[in-house]
C-alpha cells in the first residue's frame, strides 16, 4: 500500500490538471460567462489611491455607467494593456475606474507615474477583498457596470484595440445613458 501512495497522489494531480485543460477549453478565450453578468455588482467601499482619507463605494457611482479595470503594478500583462487604455480611455464615454488590486499603494502610484494614468478615479484594494467580491482571478480584468449598478460585460485578461472595437464598444453603445 505504501508503495502505491506516490502513484495515487500522482493520479489525483493528473485529474486536477485534466480538469484544468477541460476548464480552459470550455471557457473559450477566457470569456467566462461570469455568474456576475446581469447581476448587481458587489458592494464595495474602498479608499482612493491618491487620498486614502476618502473612499469610493458602489453607492457613490449609482446613476451612471462606469468601467472598472483591475490592475496591479506586479502584473506584467497590465503593462501590455496599459498603452491601450492610455490611448482609448477617453473614447469610452464613461468613467474608467482603476482598481489597484493586491498592490501596495506606493507601488501602484510609482507604476502610474512611470506609465501614465488613464483612469478617472483609482481605488486601492490592497488586501484583494473587493477583487474576490468581483470574482477576479487575475489581473487585468475589466467590468462594465451600468447606471443601475448591474454588471453588463466582463473581460478577463488584457483589453486589445480589437476587443474594444468588437466587444466593449457595442456593449457601451447598448447602454442608454452612455454617450456614443
Amino acid at each position, binding site marked *: 500500500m505504501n*508503495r*502505491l501512495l*506516490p*502513484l495515487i497522489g*500522482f*493520479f489525483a*494531480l*493528473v485529474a*486536477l*490538471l*485534466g*480538469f*484544468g*485543460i477541460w*476548464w*480552459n*477549453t470550455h471557457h473559450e478565450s*477566457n470569456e467566462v460567462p461570469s455568474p456576475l453578468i446581469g447581476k448587481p455588482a458587489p458592494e464595495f467601499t474602498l479608499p482612493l489611491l491618491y487620498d486614502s482619507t476618502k473612499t469610493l463605494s458602489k453607492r457613490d457611482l449609482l446613476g451612471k455607467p462606469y468601467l472598472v479595470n483591475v490592475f496591479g503594478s*506586479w502584473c*506584467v*500583462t497590465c*503593462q*501590455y494593456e*496599459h*498603452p491601450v487604455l492610455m490611448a482609448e480611455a477617453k473614447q469610452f464615454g464613461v468613467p474608467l475606474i482603476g482598481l489597484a488590486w*493586491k498592490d501596495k499603494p506606493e507601488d501602484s502610484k*510609482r507604476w502610474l*507615474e*512611470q*506609465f*501614465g494614468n488613464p483612469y478617472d478615479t483609482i481605488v486601492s484594494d490592497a488586501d484583494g477583498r473587493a477583487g*474576490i467580491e468581483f*470574482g477576479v*482571478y*487575475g*489581473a487585468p480584468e475589466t467590468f462594465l457596470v451600468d447606471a443601475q449598478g448591474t454588471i453588463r460585460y466582463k473581460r*478577463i*485578461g*488584457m483589453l486589445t484595440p480589437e476587443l474594444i472595437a468588437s466587444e466593449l464598444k457595442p456593449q457601451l453603445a447598448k447602454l442608454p445613458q452612455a454617450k456614443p
Partner: protein
Amino acid sequence: MLPELGQFALILALLLALMQCTLPLIGAWRGNAALIATARPIATGQFVFVALAFGVLTYAFLAQDFSVKYVAQNSNLALPWYYRFSAVWGAHEGSLLLWVLILNIWTVAVAALSRRLPDPLIARVLGVLGFVAVGFLAFTIFTSNPFARHIPGLADGADLNPILQDPGLIIHPPMLYMGYVGFSVAFAFAIAALLGGELDVAWVRWARPWTNVAWAFLTLGITLGSWWAYYVLGWGGWWFWDPVENASFMPWLVGTALIHSQAVTEKRGSFRAWTLLLSIFAFSLSLLGTFLVRSGVLTSVHAFASDPKRGLFILAFLTVVVGGSLTIYALRAPKVAGGKPFQMLSRETLLLINNLLFACAAAMVLLGTLYPLIGDALGVGRISVGPPYFGFMFLLLMLPVVLLIPFGPFFRWAAGDWRATVRTLVPALVLAVVCALAAWLLVGGLHLRAVAGIAASLWVGAGIALYALKRWREAPSGRRYTPEMLGMIAAHFGVAIFLAGVLVTESTSVESDVRMAPGETKNIAGLDFRFKGVAPAQGPNFRADEGVIEVSRDGKLLATLNPQKRQYSGNTPVQTKADIRPGFLQDVYVALGESLDPSTGSGQATGAWAVRIYVKPFVRWIWLGGILMMLGGFLAAADRRFRLHAAVRDPRSETRSGNEVRTSAAFPNPASPIANPLQP
C-alpha cells in the same frame, strides 16, 4: 527546401527514437546482445538528425527566411544577428526543439561515457531516454512544428518579443534546459535499475555525477533567470514566485534533496526508496513544469499563447511517463529497507530531515502554483496565492535547514557526537551572534531581517569554514579535500553568501522615486545623483529616450548611468531599460519613469522626468551564492571516486553478473564534454 529537410530530419529522429525505446529494452529483457548493442548507434543517429533539424532552424533565422512561419513570427530584418540566433528558442516551437536537442546531448554523453558500465544497464538507460525523446519529438512534430511554412513568404517578420532581446536570454534557456533535461539521466538510471531489478547501490554511484552536473546547470539557469529579471523587468526584484519561475524551482528543490539522498544511498545503502522516488520526481517535476508553462492551464491570463491540444498531449505524456514509472516503482521497489543501521543523532538523520524539508518545500510550491486550479475544481473560484504565501512558507521550511547545515559535515555516519559537534561549532555561533549584535548596535534602525540575515549567513559560513579547517588540521597532506568534499564546502558556502544577499537586500534597499529636472541633484543613501537630462537615442532596432545621470559620492564621480525607455517596432509596450552600477557591496540602479513635461497645452517644457533610484546593498551576493552552489555541483561531480572502481565496494553485483558486468573499470568524467553544449 531546407526547412522541409529539417522537418524530415525530425521525423527520422522520431523513428529512431521509437527504435531506441524498444529494441535495447527488449534486448536487455531477453538477454539478446545484438539488440542491446543497438542502443548506442541508434542514440547517436537520433542526435545527428535532431542536431541537423536544429541547425536548419538556426540557419533559417540567420538567413532570415521569412517563408518559415516561426521565423517570421519571431524575428525581423532589423534584429541583430545574435538575437536572431537566440530567437531560435525565443518562442514555443523552437524551445521544444532546444529541449529535444539537449536531451539528445545528454543521451549521447551517457552513451559515450558509459563504456565501462554493464551493457544491459546502459541499454535500459538509453531506452528510457529514448522513450522521453519519442514524447517530445512527437509533441514537436504533431502540435508545434517549427518548420511550418508561411505561404506566400513574407518580406519581413514581426519581432522577437522585446523583453527577450537581451544577452541574458541567449544563455539562460539553454542552461535551464541543461538542468531540467539533465534530471532525465538520473530518472533513466532509476527506471533502468527498477526494470533490471538490480536495486543495489551501484546504479546510484553511476547516477550521482550526472545528477550533480544536471543540478549545477539548473542552479546556473535559475540564477541567470533571476539576474535577468532583475535588470530587465525594471523593478529591481530578483524573484517573483510566478508559475514559470516555480516550474524551474520545483525540480531544483527535489533535485537538491536527490543529490543529498544519493550520497546516503551510495555510501551507506540507506534511503533507497527515497533516492528512487526523488529521481522519478525530479524529472517528473521538470515535465510538469513544461506542462504548466506550455499548456496555458495556469498562464491563461498571461501573455502566453495557449493551446488545449498541446496541453492535452503533454498531460497524456506526463501520465504515461510518471504514471508508468510510479507503477514500476510500486511493483519493483525494494521490499525491505536496506543499508547500515544508524542512530537518532547521525548524519543520516540530518539528511533525512533535509530530504523531508526539501520535498515539503517542493510540495508547498506545487500547491501554491496549482492553487488557482484547485480553487476552480472545488468550485470556490480561481484564487491565486502570492509572494506572501510562498515567502512565509519557504522561510518556515528552510529555517531548520539553515540551522542544521553546519552540523551536517561534522556529524558522523551512523552515530554522530552531539556534544562534540556543538562544542566545535561554538565559535561559529559566537561569531554569528556577536556580529549580528554589533551590526544592530552600530547601524541604527537596522531591520530585524537584516540582522537575522547576517547571523544566519555567518553561522552557515563559519560553520563550513570550521569544517574546512578541521580537515586541514586532521587529514594528512594531499588527502585533505576530495573534490566531492570541496564541492560540498563550496555549495554550502554559497548558501551562506546567498542568505546574506537575500536578507540584507530585502530589508535595507533604498527605493526612491523622484522628479528630476535637468541639472538637479538629489542625495539618496549617501550618494549624489545629478540628472543631466534625457536625449533621444537610436539602437539597432529600437528608438529610445536615454537619460544621463551622474552618480557621485562626496564630489567624486563614481559612474555615469544611462537608463533608457525603448520603443521596439510594432505595438509592443515601451521597455524600461534600467542602468546599473554593479558593486560587490551595493548596486546603484536607475530607471526612467515618465516624462513630467505636459504633453499638450501651453505648459513650459522643463525636461523633467520621474526617475526611480534604487540602492541595493548586497544584491549581487544572491547570484554569487547561486554561482558558488553551481560550482559545488560541478566540483562534486568531478570526484575521481565516481570514475574509479565504480562498483568495487559492492561485491554482490560483481559475483552475480560475472564478466558481463564490467564493474571495476573507470567511469569517465561526465562534466567535460557537455560543458559547452551549444557550440553549433
